[in-house]
Each structure stands twice: as C-alpha cells, then as structure tokens.
C-alpha cells in the first residue's frame, strides 16, 4: 500500500507562505510527478511529505494513518536526492545496507537484498567501490538501490536526474519508469523538466507559487490545460499565444496553438510570416517566425525536409481542432 493524502497542508517560513493550504491525493502504485518552474514549492512539498520539513498546518496521511508529526524514518518512505547524498566514506555495499542496518534487518537478509538490488541496477561489479570512484549515473543508481532495499510504501525523487548529462538522463528516465512498472510502488517525482513529467507520469501535478494549477494525466494536461500557465508549461516547444483581433474572432481574450498544430507551407496559408531562425533537427524543423499579428515571434514545427532558412517567407495555417481559447483571467474557455 502507498496511498498519500494531503489535507489543507500549508507551509510558511516566518511571514512568507511558500505553500498555501493545499489538498492532494496520490493513489497506491501511482507515478505522480510534481512539475513547475524553479521556486514554485515542489521540492518543499516533497520534503513535507518526507517529513524533512514540518507542516505549518494541515494533515498528511499515509495509508490512512496521520503521519503529520511522524519523523522521516517512521513514515516508511524512501527518498532519492538530486545530489545523490551517498555516504562518501562507505562502500556501495555499505551505502545500500545502511537503511537495513538501521532497521535491524539480519545479515543474511541484508546480503540477499543487496545482491537483488545490485543485480537490478547493474551495480554488482561496483559493490566494493566508494561513491567517489563512480560516475554520476552509477551514483544515482546506488541512491536508488539504497531506496529499494528499504521496501518503502512510496519512493520520493527530488530532481534525481538534474545532475546528469542529457544522454544519461534519457537512459535513467527509462530505468526509473521500468522500476516503477516492476515494483508497482507509489512514486512521487519532482522535476522542473516537463519532458520528464510527460514521459514518466501517470499523474502530473503542475505547481506555481506553491499552489496547484492542475492535476491530471499527461495527455489531459496536454489536450485540455486549465489555464494559460499550464498550457504554456506543458508541451515542448511551448504553446503560442495570440491576443487581439485574431483571438476576438474566436470569442476569446487569447487563443493558444501548439507549434505542432500549425501547418507550414511555402505557397499558401492563413498567415504570412518571415522566418527568423530555422532549427533543422532532421526529424523536425522548428521555425521561429515573425509577422503573425498578435504573436511575435511564433514557433512552428514543420517536417524534417522543409527547406526554408532565415529571411524566407512561409505561410501558416492553424489546425482549428487544436485551438485553445482563454479568457482575460487566463482560464480556459470550454
């Protein structure tokens, strides 16, 4: 079991309220991602769940038990930190064994779990090394190993991939997703990277200024963002917003169109625009264009073989099926 429920949880540091009262339910076995820009309170929220920070008010329930005042060790959760937080003076084996040693697990069981974790994480050859002798990816795997052997009710990940290079990040992302499929344990994952959120999550919680903007599955957030913030934050490259006369035609204060929902032509279309920068990725081409009324610059995604460059004229046509409408407050118009 690993059901976590936050009821009117609030966190203030002195006069400053970082997280206004907030309700959230995380179901058993769910992979939940907290995503939002830097300083939005997502890490603080995770630390409140972990017990590393005290709540100012409200209640945190883990599997139906009030855990608000329990110390971190008593909550049955395991955490993986951004900086890995391995014990530098202990070998990989001892690092992984540490939580079991603290829990009083017997030696035979410890050895069994260490080998199982090491095997699952490809660490068998490194068990006697110190963290300083490992690469970033290996260190992160040790940190995950240390979390697995505790057999926690839920895993908490605090931006675990931020310190890794791009290629390794993609690999580790897959490994964590596979781990979740295999263990079926509740996982809460904090990131500022919306690609990580979209690819890994069962449920995404978008946060801004400590408050929840929207909760939903990745596709729900992509298809029906509740407001302009979520619409702009989810999806890469980000959604284009058009205000003014063009939006008024749709009876909205602003309309939003994702770059992939705009057709690019060099002969005809609804809007004429000039290419500022063309990014040729091979599979796709991202064009940053100028000249569309109410949206400058606009980003559009074209096919990989589209042969346009700086200064060329292109014609753009939005897909009417995928136009998002927003009111003056930035809320979605249904």
């Amino acid at each position: 079991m690993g059901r976590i429920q936050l009821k009117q949880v609030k966190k203030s540091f002195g006069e400053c309220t970082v997280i206004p009262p907030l309700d959230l339910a995380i179901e058993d076995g769910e992979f939940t991602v907290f995503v939002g820009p830097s300083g939005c309170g997502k890490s603080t929220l995770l630390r409140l769940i972990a017990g590393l920070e005290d709540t100012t008010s409200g209640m945190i329930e883990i599997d139906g038990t009030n855990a608000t005042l329990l110390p971190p060790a008593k909550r049955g959760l395991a955490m993986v930190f951004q900086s890995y937080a391995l014990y530098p003076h202990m070998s990989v084996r001892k690092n992984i064994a540490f939580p079991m040693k603290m829990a009083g697990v017997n030696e035979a069981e410890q050895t069994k779990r260490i080998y199982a974790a090491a095997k699952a994480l490809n660490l068998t050859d490194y068990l006697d090394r110190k963290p300083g002798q490992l690469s970033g990816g290996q260190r992160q795997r040790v940190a995950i190993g240390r979390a697995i052997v505790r057999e926690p009710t839920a895993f908490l990940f605090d931006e675990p991939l931020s310190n890794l290079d791009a290629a390794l990040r993609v690999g580790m992302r897959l490994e964590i997703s596979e781990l979740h499929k295999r263990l079926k344990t509740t996982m809460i994952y904090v990131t500022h990277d919306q690609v990580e959120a979209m690819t890994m999550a069962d449920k995404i919680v978008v946060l801004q200024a400590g408050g929840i903007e929207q909760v939903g599955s990745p596709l729900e957030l992509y298809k029906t963002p509740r407001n302009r913030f979520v619409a702009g934050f989810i999806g890469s490259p980000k959604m284009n917003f058009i205000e003014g006369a063009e939006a008024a035609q749709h009876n909205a204060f602003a309309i939003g169109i994702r770059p992939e929902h705009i057709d690019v032509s060099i002969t005809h279309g609804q809007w004429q625009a000039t290419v500022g920068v063309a990014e040729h990725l091979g599979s796709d081409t991202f064009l940053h264009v100028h000249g569309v009324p109410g949206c400058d610059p606009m980003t559009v995604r074209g096919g990989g073989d589209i042969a346009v460059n700086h200064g060329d004229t292109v014609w753009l046509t939005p897909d009417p099926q995928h136009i998002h409408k927003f009111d003056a407050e930035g809320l979605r118009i249904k």
Partner: protein
Amino acid sequence: MARSVSTRSKVLNTAVAGTLGFLMVFPILWILILSLKTEEDAIRAPLEVLFNSGWTFDSYGAVQARSDYFKHFFNSVIISVGSTFLGLMIAIPAAWAMAFVPGKRTKDVLMWMLSTKMLPPVGVLVPIYLIFRDTGLLDSRLGLTLVLMLINMPIIIWMLYTYFREIPGEILEAARMDGASLRSEILYVLTPMAVPGIASTVLLNIILAWNEAFWTLNLTAAKAAPLTAFIASYSSPEGLFYAKLSAASIMAIAPILILGWFSQKQLVRGLTFGAVK
C-alpha cells in the same frame, strides 16, 4: 603560463627562508645543546659552549633521579588526552546543533564562547582555586582535566563547527530518511565524514593542553603535576641550573614534538579542510 623563476631569486629565497627557519628553531636547538653539557660548561660564553667543552648525558640522569619524569609524563598524557576527548563528547553534539539546526542566536553563542578566550585566565583564578579547594579537586588529575577541557572547549567547538558546515546537509537528511536516529546519524554518518577535521582538532587540543602552564602550575603541587610543572621546578630560588633545566625541557617537549612530526600531514590537511572544494 607557468611563472618563470630566475636562479638568482631562487637562491635568494632559499637563503632567506633557511635563515628564518634556523632562527625559529634556534632556541630549541640551543636548549638541546645545553642539555648535553655540564652545569659549569652551560653558563660559559656561547662560542666556548659550542667548541670548547665536552658532551655528556649527565643532566638527563640527574633530572630523572631528582624528579620522576615518567610520573609527570603520564600526568601530562592523562590530562591532555583526557581533556581533549571529554571535550569532544560535548563539542561534537554542540557543533552539530550549531552547524545543522542553527537558531537565531547561534552566531552570538559562538562569539560569546570565543570571547571567553579573550579573558585573561588570571581573572578567574581565585574563584576556580576556591571551587577546587572546596571540592577537593586541587592537585588532582580529574580537576586539571576538567579545567583544561573547559578552557579549550571554545576552540574545539569552533573548529568542529567549521568542519561540520562543510558537510552537505542532504547527506544527513538521507540518513534520517534511511531510519537513522540522531545518535546513529552522528555516530555513523557525521563523525566518519568529519574524521580529518576531528583528527586535527584532537591533535591541536592535545598540543594546547600539553603546553598549558598557567592552570597546571597554579592548581597542582606534587600529585597531579604534569611536565610543564616539571620544567618549572628547575627554575628555583636556589639558582638556575641551565643544563638540567634544558634537559628537563627537552624531555618535556620531545613527546609532543614527535607526535607533531608524525601527524603534521594530518594536521595541515585538517586545518585547510574545505578550503578548496
């Protein structure tokens, strides 16, 4: 680009550094020389001492015969090591609290502790003497251990505080998540990580306590007198015995000199710990 150093400046630097080094070590060297002379030779003019007199170990024998060196030596060991380790027991939790859960007044407390080192010890001699007299701690190793622990405590806490601050808080949080109690966190995670810092703190405080003379001279007589009192006993109203005084000094500083020699690497590493990441 590497800096180019001319041969002339190399020679000059070596000469200056060598001269300064020699000047610094000269008093100890001279004491060593005097300790190997007879009392008559020791008071002669320096050049005669060096070139016109014989060498002898008699002073060492005389010193050992007159006052039991080993008794004083053991007193010094017990007092310096005891006060340092007793101090650590209190200072590690104190430094942990100040480094990882600082309060609004932590900085003030640290400054206040340091300020006690600025007070001349003689200012509190009378009250401490009276307390020791009334509690039977005068001339006892326990009493001296306690007083040296207290006077060195600010330095121990300051040093440990600085080392602990270099340890990332996330590692201690990870230990907490892993189920470590406060005791386990300090014992299994913090202390092993701070070993270089703790080691240099230990060494420095043993040296400070070993060389402490004010309290050891004022609070001891015969039973608990350490090596500092042992040296002082050779400067007596009957006159100065240079050779014996020198022999006693060499015998008193030799152990700490040897300890310092073997641990200098550790000491320097500890004192510069965290200076470069």
